[in-house]
C-alpha cells in the first residue's frame, strides 16, 4: 500500500491559466467539487503575457461584424485545416464569454457610448479585439482569479470553509494521469515547495496546461511551457493532433541576449510600425503571397493611406498573418540584409510623434527602455521571429472538449488541438480559452455527476510507479545515475539547453527533411542521457529536480513536433518546408495524430528510428455545407481539393 496522501474531488483541473480557471469556475458552478493544480502561484499563469485582446464579434465598433465573419477569418487564418466545428462554436460563443467577464468585474476599454471597445488586428476583417491597453491577458487572469475567490467566499458563507468546493493547489506539478482501465481515476502530483507527493482522486480531469515553447531556444513563453499537458495526455493514451504547427511570432526582441524572444506586440504594426531591412527598404511588399494579393497594398503610399482611410485603401503588408511575416523576416536575415544582432528593424520612431508612441504603446516603450536601453520614440527596434504558440495539441471532441479514447479526460486552451488549424490569428487564443475552458468544465462536471457512486478506483501500483519515476533523478531506486557506466550524471540544465538548441536549429521556422532526421537522432540521444539526469540536494523547492522531471515532457513533445513535421510534405501556416514550399490541397483534409509507441506507458524506447511516437494519418470530416457557403467559390478552390469542391452544395 502506498503512503502517498490522497484527496477526493469531482473534477481536477491541471493548469490555472485562462482555460483552466474558466473550466474550474464552470465545473464548480455546475455543482462539482473542483480542484485546480498549477505549477506557479495562483494568478501568475502565462495568460498574463497576452497583450492584444480577446477576439469576439460583438460588433461594438463595426456593426457589420458577426460570428460568420469571425468564423471565416479564423478558417482563412488556419488555412482551412481548423476543426471547423470548433471554429464555429468559438465564433458563436465568444461574445457571451466576454460579456460574462464584465459581470465578474472586468474593466475593458470603452467606446464613446460606453460599450466594450474593439481594436483591429492581423487577419481580422473588422475591429474585433476587446482589450485593456496592452495588458488584456492580465485583466483576463485577474478577473477569473477574482471570480474564483468570489465563489470561495460564497462557499465560506455556507460551509465555513473557503476551500470546501473549490480549491487551488498552487506550486504543484502533475506528473501522471492515473487510470482505471481506459478511464481516468485521478492524478499524481508533487508539491514543489515541500517535494511531497500526493494523489487527487477524481473521475474527471481537465488538462489546461498551455504550450510547449520551452523546447525552443528563442521563445516568448515562460518556464512553465514545457508541454506537460501534451505529455500527460500521450502517456494516458490520448493522441495529439497536428503537432507540426508551431507559430513563430514575427516580432520578438533579439537584443540583448538575455531578453531574446520576449514579445513585441502586434499592435506596434497595427498602429503604424513598419519593417525595414538593413538597406532601409520596406521589404514586406516583396513577400505578399498570391492568396492575399488582392487584400494588401502594393505601394508604400497606399499602405500609408490605409491607417486613416481603411475603406478605400488596402492594408499594409506588415499586417499579413503572422506566419507570412515571420518567414519574410527569416528570409531577409538569411540574405544578409538583417540588423546588427540578426533581426530586422521595426520602426515607429519615424512614423508617429514621441508622445503618441508613449501613450499607445506604454509597455513596449518601457520594455525597450528598461531591458534594451532603446528609446523606441527615437530609434528603430530590432526584432526577429520567436516561438510563440503551438496550434497542435490534444485531439478533442469539438463540442465537449473530451480527449479521444480516454473517458474522463478533457482538454482546453493551447494544449488542445484543432481550433486554430495551421495558424492562429492574434486575439483568438484568449477567446479560445474562455469558450472551450467553459465547455471542458461543463462536460467534465457532467461526466463526474453521471458516474455518481461508480467512480473509478485508484490503482496503488500506478501510484507507486509514478512515485518511483519522480524520484529517479535522486536515484532513489536502481544504481546511482551516472555510476552505471562510470560516467558522471547529466546536468539537467545542460540537457535542456541542448534540446532547445536542437529544436531551434533543426525543427524551427524553416524545415528540411535532412535536418529533421538529424533532430530525431539528437532527441534519441538526449532521451538516453536524460535518464541519467541527476540532481543535488533535497526535495524541497529544488529547481534542478523540477527541470529533470519536465525534461521527459519536453522530449516527448519535441519528438511529436519533429515526426509530424517530417511527415507533412507541404508548407501551410505554422509549418514551412524548404523542400516542399507550396501548400498542397491534398493535405488540407489530412490530420496527423501522434500516439505513444509503447502503449503500456513505458519510456524505454530509445531507438532513434522507431522512437517513442507513432504517427497515423486521418481524414478530416468534410466541412458542413452551410459553413462552406460563407465563402466565395474562387477562394475555396485555392484551399480545397477537387473532390471536396465537387459536392453540389456550392
Amino acid at each position, binding site marked *: 500500500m502506498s503512503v502517498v*496522501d*490522497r*484527496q*477526493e474531488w469531482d473534477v481536477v483541473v491541471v493548469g490555472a491559466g485562462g482555460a483552466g480557471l474558466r473550466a474550474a469556475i464552470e465545473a464548480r458552478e455546475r455543482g462539482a467539487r473542483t480542484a485546480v493544480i498549477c505549477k506557479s502561484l*495562483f494568478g501568475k499563469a502565462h495568460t498574463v503575457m497576452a497583450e492584444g485582446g480577446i477576439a469576439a464579434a460583438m460588433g461594438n465598433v463595426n456593426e457589420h461584424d458577426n460570428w460568420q465573419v469571425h468564423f471565416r477569418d479564423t478558417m482563412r487564418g488556419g488555412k482551412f485545416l481548423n476543426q471547423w466545428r470548433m471554429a464555429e462554436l468559438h465564433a458563436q460563443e465568444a461574445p457571451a464569454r466576454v460579456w460574462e467577464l464584465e459581470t465578474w468585474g472586468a474593466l475593458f476599454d470603452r467606446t464613446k457610448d460606453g460599450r466594450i471597445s474593439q481594436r483591429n488586428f492581423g487577419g481580422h476583417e473588422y475591429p474585433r479585439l476587446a482589450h485593456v491597453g496592452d495588458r488584456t491577458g492580465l485583466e483576463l487572469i485577474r478577473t477569473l482569479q477574482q471570480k474564483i475567490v468570489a465563489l470561495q467566499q460564497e462557499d465560506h458563507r455556507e460551509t465555513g470553509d*473557503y*476551500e470546501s468546493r473549490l*480549491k*487551488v*493547489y*498552487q*506550486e*504543484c506539478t502533475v506528473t501522471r494521469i492515473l487510470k482505471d482501465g481506459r478511464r481516468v481515476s485521478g492524478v499524481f502530483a508533487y*508539491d514543489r*515547495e*515541500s517535494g*511531497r507527493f*500526493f494523489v487527487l482522486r477524481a473521475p474527471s480531469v481537465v488538462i489546461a496546461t498551455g504550450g510547449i515553447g520551452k523546447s525552443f531556444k528563442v521563445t516568448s513563453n515562460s518556464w512553465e511551457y514545457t508541454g506537460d499537458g501534451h505529455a500527460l495526455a500521450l502517456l494516458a493514451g490520448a493522441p495529439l493532433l497536428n503537432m507540426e504547427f508551431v507559430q513563430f511570432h514575427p516580432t520578438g526582441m533579439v537584443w540583448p541576449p538575455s531578453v531574446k524572444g520576449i514579445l513585441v506586440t502586434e499592435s506596434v504594426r497595427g498602429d503604424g510600425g513598419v519593417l525595414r531591412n538593413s538597406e532601409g527598404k520596406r521589404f514586406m511588399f516583396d513577400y505578399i503571397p498570391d492568396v492575399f494579393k488582392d487584400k494588401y497594398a502594393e505601394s508604400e503610399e497606399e499602405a500609408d493611406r490605409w491607417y486613416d482611410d481603411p475603406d478605400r485603401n488596402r492594408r499594409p503588408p506588415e499586417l499579413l498573418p503572422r506566419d507570412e511575416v515571420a518567414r519574410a523576416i527569416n528570409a531577409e536575415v538569411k540574405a544578409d540584409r538583417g540588423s546588427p544582432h540578426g533581426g530586422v528593424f521595426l520602426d515607429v520612431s519615424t512614423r508617429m510623434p514621441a508622445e503618441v508612441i508613449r501613450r499607445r504603446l506604454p509597455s513596449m516603450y518601457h520594455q525597450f527602455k528598461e531591458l534594451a536601453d532603446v528609446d523606441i520614440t527615437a530609434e528603430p527596434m530590432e526584432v526577429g521571429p520567436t516561438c510563440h504558440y503551438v496550434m497542435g495539441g490534444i485531439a478533442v471532441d469539438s463540442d465537449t472538449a473530451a480527449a479521444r479514447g480516454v473517458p474522463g479526460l478533457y482538454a482546453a486552451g493551447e494544449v488542445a488541438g484543432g481550433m486554430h488549424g495551421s495558424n492562429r490569428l492574434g486575439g483568438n487564443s484568449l477567446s479560445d480559452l474562455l469558450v472551450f475552458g467553459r465547455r471542458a468544465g461543463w462536460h467534465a462536471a457532467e461526466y463526474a455527476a453521471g458516474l455518481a457512486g461508480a467512480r473509478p478506483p485508484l490503482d496503488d501500483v500506478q501510484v507507486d510507479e509514478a512515485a518511483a519515476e519522480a524520484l529517479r533523478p535522486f536515484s532513489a531506486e536502481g544504481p546511482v545515475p551516472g555510476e552505471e557506466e562510470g560516467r558522471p550524471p547529466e546536468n539537467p540544465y545542460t540537457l535542456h539547453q541542448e534540446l532547445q538548441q536542437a529544436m531551434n536549429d533543426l525543427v524551427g521556422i524553416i524545415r528540411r527533411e535532412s535536418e529533421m532526421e538529424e533532430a530525431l537522432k539528437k532527441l534519441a540521444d538526449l532521451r538516453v542521457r536524460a535518464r541519467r539526469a541527476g540532481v543535488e540536494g533535497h526535495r524541497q523547492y529544488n529547481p534542478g529536480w523540477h527541470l529533470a522531471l519536465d525534461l521527459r515532457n519536453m522530449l516527448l513533445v519535441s519528438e511529436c513536433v519533429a515526426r509530424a513535421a517530417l511527415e507533412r510534405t507541404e508548407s501551410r501556416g505554422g509549418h514551412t518546408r524548404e523542400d516542399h514550399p507550396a501548400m498542397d490541397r491534398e493535405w488540407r483534409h489530412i490530420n496527423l495524430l501522434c500516439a505513444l509507441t509503447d502503449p503500456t506507458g513505458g519510456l524505454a524506447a530509445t531507438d532513434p528510428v522507431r522512437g517513442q511516437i507513432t504517427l497515423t494519418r486521418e481524414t478530416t470530416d468534410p466541412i458542413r455545407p452551410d459553413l462552406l457557403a460563407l465563402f466565395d467559390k474562387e477562394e475555396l478552390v485555392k484551399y480545397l481539393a477537387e473532390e471536396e469542391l465537387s459536392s453540389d452544395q456550392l
Partner: protein
Amino acid sequence: MSPDKKVRPKLATGTEPHLNSGGVRTGTRAAIAAPHLRTDRWWLAPAATAAGLLAFIVYSTWRAFADAHYYASPYVSPFYSPCLAERCEPMPGGPNWAIFGSWWGISPAIIILIFPLGFRLTCYYYRKAYYRGFWASPPACAVAEPHKKYTGETRFPLILQNIHRYFFYAAILVAGILTYDTVLAFRNEHHEWGHMGLGTVVFLVNIVLIWAYTVSCHSCRHIVGGRLKHFSKHPVRYRMWTWVGKLNARHMQLAWASLVSVALADFYVYLVASGAFDDPRFF
C-alpha cells in the same frame, strides 16, 4: 469528504500570525541579522526633510512669539494676518479686527497660526515627511523602524489626522485673507492705491504658491470630484478633479515652495519693519 490534513492547504500556509514582534528578524523569516541591507544613501532624504522642517519650526516659533516687526505699511506679515487682538498694530484697511480684547496678553500670531499649522500638520504630504524624518516610522523604505509597537493612525491622537478636511476649509479662508493682504500691497506706505514695490512681488509669489499648495491638497481633490462614483454624470467637477489632480502630483514641491515663500514674506516684512532694509518702490 474533508481534505486530508497531511497535505498542506496551500492557500493558507504561513498565514498563522506569529505574534512575536521581532520585525524583520521574526523567527519564520529569512535569518538576516542586519536591520536592512541598503547600500545607497537612504538616510539623506529623511535627514534633509528633518533639517528643513526644524529650520522652519525654529524660525516660525521665534517670529510668532516675537510680537514685533510684523507690520510695515502696506505689508503685513502672513504670520500675523488676520490680526485679531486689541493689541495688534493698527493696519489701515488691513485685516485686523479686535475680536480678542485686551485680555489677550501674548502675540496675536498665536490666535491665527493654529489654522495654517493644523492644515500643514495634518497634510498628507507633511505626514509622510515627519513620520519618516522625525519618527523614523519608517526612516526609509525597507529600513527597519526602531519602534516595538505600531498602531498607525488607528487611535488617539493620530486618528485626529482625519480632520484634515476641516483645516482645509480654514486654510481657504486664511488664503483668502492673504490674498486680500496682497491686494493691499498694491498701495504705498501712505495707503494710496496703484503702487508697487519689491514687497508686492514677494507677496504675489507667496500668495500664488499658497493657493497652489492649498488647492492641490488631497482633501480638495476628493471634495471637488474624487468622491464621485460617476465622473461622466458631472463633467464640470470631472474637469476640476483632473485639474486639481495635476497640481496634486506636485503637492510635495508646492508644500516646500509655499513653506519657504511664506517664511520669506514674513522675513521681508521683518526686515522692512525693523528698518534693516528699505523696500525698493517701483512706482
